[in-house]
């Protein structure tokens, strides 16, 4: 496979930006990435956009085209991909394939989203379809996304004895990292007491243990080796990336399923496990080679469960690792030095790309107070609705 490099990344700070249109957030992030990559708009041969269901895209999910028509109609190839929270990873992987094929030398990826307030609802215009789990979960049960994660957290308490204080401590760690990230929405360190005092949303998960909905944007530009050398700076290579879907019999209580058929021996959240294993294989590495991990911490439960699920730790080991400081910047496996979703919140289609921005900043030594020293291999893992998993491994 033709080697693919990250030429530049950019982001718009996460937060609530009611006065900035989505396209404005997108342009901001892309301009930053173009500047980093030393490129002009018209140098882009392709643009892969993660497609929001909530806003923009000319009403048809055409967010890449919308951006081209806003800033530079030079005819570049535009691809718009769905994938909910994993859409950014799907966009990245698609762009990597386009460059790896040899047909493209420069392809940008983009995610920009302003989220509706409160619990993430059905997308506007979704049909009332009795074969659709998403319809059924709302209509017959009213189960919000946090309810699904809460059932996972409750089961973890039952199986391995995780305490409510440990969930709180995982949330505190994210905010401690996020305090050093200028793109994060929540940059004030928290405490276990503060988290424990926050309102219970869906037992056992409290408000400060669940990612908020945010507005934000991120862009990652990929290219050939020649382009990477032209852009300047240390070369950051895509060691491997992959996307995957779920395995039959996966025991996860997966959003938005109202019924499942768990089978013995099948990996939990197998779409993410599958993507990570394929990305490792493509990169010819294993968990022992990873210097830092950006994972999708939709809740504090994810911070503990995912490192075990991905094979970094034994089942139930994360609680002890967290207490020992192994998961913090400076520890053995820094988790989410960016601060994670608990610090920046969910801007669904943008967040998997923000993870990749962080991998780039870490490998370039640009991460300031949250820098993982001498990071050489950095990886991300993300999950999206519909059983979409994605994982990206970058190396310096």
């Amino acid at each position, binding site marked *: 496979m033709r080697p693919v490099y990250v030429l530049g990344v950019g982001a718009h700070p996460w937060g609530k930006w009611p006065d900035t249109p989505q396209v404005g957030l997108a342009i901001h992030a892309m301009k930053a990435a173009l500047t980093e990559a030393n490129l002009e708009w018209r140098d882009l041969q392709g643009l892969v956009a993660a497609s929001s269901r909530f806003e923009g895209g000319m009403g048809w999910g055409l967010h890449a085209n919308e951006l081209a028509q806003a800033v530079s109609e030079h005819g570049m190839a535009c691809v718009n991909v769905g994938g909910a929270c994993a859409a950014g990873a799907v966009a990245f992987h698609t762009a990597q394939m386009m460059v790896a094929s040899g047909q493209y030398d420069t392809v940008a990826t983009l995610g920009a989203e302003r989220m509706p307030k409160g619990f993430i609802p059905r997308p506007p215009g979704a049909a009332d379809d009795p074969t659709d789990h998403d319809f059924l979960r709302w209509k017959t049960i009213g189960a919000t996304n946090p*309810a699904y994660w809460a059932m996972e957290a409750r089961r973890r308490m039952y199986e391995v004895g995780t305490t409510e204080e440990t969930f709180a401590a995982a949330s505190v760690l994210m905010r401690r990292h996020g305090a050093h990230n200028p793109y994060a929405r929540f940059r004030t360190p928290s405490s276990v007491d503060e988290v424990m005092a926050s309102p219970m949303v869906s037992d056992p998960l409290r408000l400060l243990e669940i990612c908020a909905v945010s507005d934000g944007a991120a862009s990652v530009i990929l290219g050939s080796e020649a382009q990477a050398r032209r852009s300047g700076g240390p070369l950051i290579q895509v060691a491997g990336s992959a996307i995957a879907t779920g395995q039959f019999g996966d025991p996860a209580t997966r959003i938005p399923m109202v019924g499942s058929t768990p089978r013995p021996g099948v990996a939990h959240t197998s779409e993410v496990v599958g993507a990570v294993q394929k990305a490792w294989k493509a990169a010819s590495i294993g968990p022992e080679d990873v210097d830092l991990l950006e994972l999708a911490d939709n809740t504090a439960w994810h911070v503990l469960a995912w490192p075990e699920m991905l094979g970094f730790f034994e089942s139930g080991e994360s609680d002890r690792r967290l207490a020992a400081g192994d998961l913090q910047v400076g520890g053995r496996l820094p988790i989410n030095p960016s601060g994670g979703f608990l610090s920046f919140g969910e801007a669904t289609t943008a967040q998997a790309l923000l993870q990749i921005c962080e991998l780039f900043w870490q490998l370039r030594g640009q991460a300031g107070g949250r820098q993982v020293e001498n990071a050489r291999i950095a990886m991300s893992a993300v999950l999206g609705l519909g059983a979409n998993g994605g994982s990206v491994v970058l190396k310096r």
Partner: protein
Amino acid sequence: MDSTTLRPVVDEILKLDQAGAHLLGSACQDCDTVYFPPVLSCRNPDCAGKTIVPFHLEGAGVLFSFTVQRYRPPALFALEPWEAYAIGSVDLAGGVRVLGIIRAPFDQLSPGLAVRLSTSVINDGDEGAVITHVFVPDEDGQG
């Protein structure tokens, strides 16, 4: 709160008859996998035939996990008057795990609790009162 005279909020997955409430699912005749809600085809990649037939799920099960949802969900679900309620995942016979409202005192909830299928009235706004499937503690069941 049960009623067999009211309409299910989604007809296609819940049926009431003299024997009580049934969840409507599917079974694959080739690999014996049970599905809820009903499916068009079998998801099993190792199953070649994928012959799907309707299947009524048994009502007795074991609580796998649960939560108490303390904030009102978006509009499609209407519970009036609003109060916090429990949601859980329940393992039924045939290897299928089903989500539903758990109607039980919160302090009785624990993984492993024996439950059985029932129904509850929820308020569905313009269309009047309707019922949805719920699970309740099963006094006779194995915990």
